[in-house]
């Protein structure tokens, strides 16, 4: 609880600013003049219907999907105005955890973590190894996974190893795409806690696309909900619970939501 107060105390400084974003495929509009702020030091949970464009928004911010109009500002810089060099420097300041992990299948976990380091920095092998082992331990894995290939890991371990890779360069922003999907409830709970711990340890800003009501209750400082291509509501979990939009009502007051609510008192 302390952390939540602490991270919201400073003046709100929008680290990601999305303005009037329009994204569409063919004649179908996915995001329709969407506006969103992500503030430094917070964990923002992003919810919405399946196929509603949550992943599209994430991928648009990351530059993987072209946009029709609108602006995306990250660290106060408009991504369209950056030269290629500036852009790749900026990309090093964020880390991304893909839904399936997206670990390089031909590299071991250690090599996966060291990959971004090797490409951008000139470090001794000793320091590279120390960094890799530290990150592996930070995400709650044992050192002996370091020399394993992704195909030898379980689903939960893949997520953790992928998280370790996304943290390799000590990013300021961490994008998580459904981090707890495919994990058992205990594993998912542990993962939520891990994200909270890492966020405090490394001073991260976390942008988390999720469906997990537990995550929304336990780790998110703020929640934004996507509907009809726009952000239909944003605020704390209490704000969400009080929202009147029919989809939000169903989402936060459905049978599963009630069960979660009870468990969180």
């Amino acid at each position: 609880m302390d952390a939540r107060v602490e991270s919201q105390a400073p003046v709100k400084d929008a680290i990601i600013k999305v303005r009037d974003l329009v994204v569409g495929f063919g004649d179908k509009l996915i995001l329709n003049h969407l506006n969103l702020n992500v503030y430094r030091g917070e964990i923002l949970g992003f919810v919405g219907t399946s196929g509603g464009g949550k992943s599209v928004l994430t991928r648009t911010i990351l530059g993987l999907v072209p946009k029709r109009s609108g602006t995306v500002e990250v660290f106060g810089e408009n991504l369209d105005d950056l030269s290629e060099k500036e852009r790749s420097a900026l990309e090093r300041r964020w880390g991304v955890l893909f839904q399936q992990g997206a670990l390089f299948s031909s590299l071991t976990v250690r090599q996966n973590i060291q990959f971004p380091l090797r490409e951008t920095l000139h470090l001794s092998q000793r320091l590279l190894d120390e960094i890799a082992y530290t990150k592996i331990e930070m995400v709650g894995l044992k050192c002996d996974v370091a020399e394993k290939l992704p195909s030898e890991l379980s689903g939960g371990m893949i997520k953790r190893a992928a998280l370790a890779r996304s943290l390799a360069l000590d990013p300021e922003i961490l994008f998580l795409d459904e981090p707890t999907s495919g994990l058992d409830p205990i594993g998912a709970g542990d993962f939520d806690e891990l994200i909270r711990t890492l966020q405090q340890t490394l001073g991260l800003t976390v942008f988390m696309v999720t469906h997990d009501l537990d995550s929304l209750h336990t780790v998110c400082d703020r929640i934004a909900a996507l509907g009809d291509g726009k952000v239909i509501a944003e605020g704390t979990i209490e704000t969400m619970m009080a929202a009147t939009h029919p989809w939000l009502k169903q989402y936060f007051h459905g049978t599963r939501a009630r069960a979660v609510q009870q468990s969180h008192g």
Partner: protein
Amino acid sequence: MPDAGLISVRTQDDRLTVAGRGAWTFDHADDLESAVDQTVHDYRTPKGVVEIDLAGVERMDTFGALLLERLKRAWTKAGVEPRVVGLSQRYTVLMAEIERTGHEPPPPVRRHEAVLERLGREMVHVGQDALALLNFVGATVTAFGRVMLRPHTFRFTSMVNQLDRVGFRAVPIILLITFLIGCILAQQGIFNFRRFGADIYVVDMVGVLVLRELGVLIVAIMIAGRSGSAYTAELGSMRMREEIDALRVMGFDPIEVLVVPRLMALIIALPLLTFLGSMAAIFGAGIVSWGYGGITPEVFLDRLKQAITLDQFKVGMYKAPFMAATIGIVACMEGMRVGGSAESLGEHTTASVVKAIFLVIVMDGVFAMFFAAIDM
């Protein structure tokens, strides 16, 4: 003296003060590491009190924290407990986390393999390969047998679909390549035979060569590259995504569902393509003979009838289904052996094409001996 930019050291009586400055972050990690190592090297066994003053450190991340920990541990090991002062409040959590983790990495496991050991491994590998091939041939034949006993289980639609992909859609490229080969053969033949006035024998040469050997060989090699690689990649990625396991747990035999229709399609397609390819090659040869050698089509056809027998044609066609089966079995077997990584998929696709082409050529040689022995 270590680099004064990030670390400066002061000694006063029995007091050693290490002062950190600037950004202890990943972009300076290289310099910081050499500074830390230099400091440890210069003051290996400090006497008295050691103090690490971090008030001048503006920013710190895992890299900086890890190197600070390395410095601390080096002195702790030497028997002096350093005191850390001036660490910004923001970084205490990070430092605590690094103290908790940040252990020395276990010594890397490096395997040194002697040349002989490698050679031995390779030989064992070759043996295992041959055994796997035999095993796969057996499994395929069994599956074929089962399908023959219960013909209604044969996946006809799947086979037709494969036939379209490996047969019908391969027609244009096969026609083009064999046509060009026929042209080149005729041009070279005429050019060289003309010197001793034997231009007309180019028809004999092209006819025998194409129908007996080249037609089927070129088509088989093309198909190994075009369809064999596709089979391996398809089955391989299905294996990677556990689709083959899914089939198995649903009670299907993957070989029956995936391999048999593919193999059947190839066995049907390859003789047809061989026929088309041989015709295209002879057509190409005819065109060049007419344009370049002045042999009119009537003369060409007349000569062709005398030069070749039905046997020549049969020899080529008999070989085609066997080559198709070889290509199909090698391709499917390699596909089924793909492991979890993208690299493995690439490796097996390469192996599939290389092995298929090699076996096709070896088989052609064996057939040549066989047909010579039976006077065909």
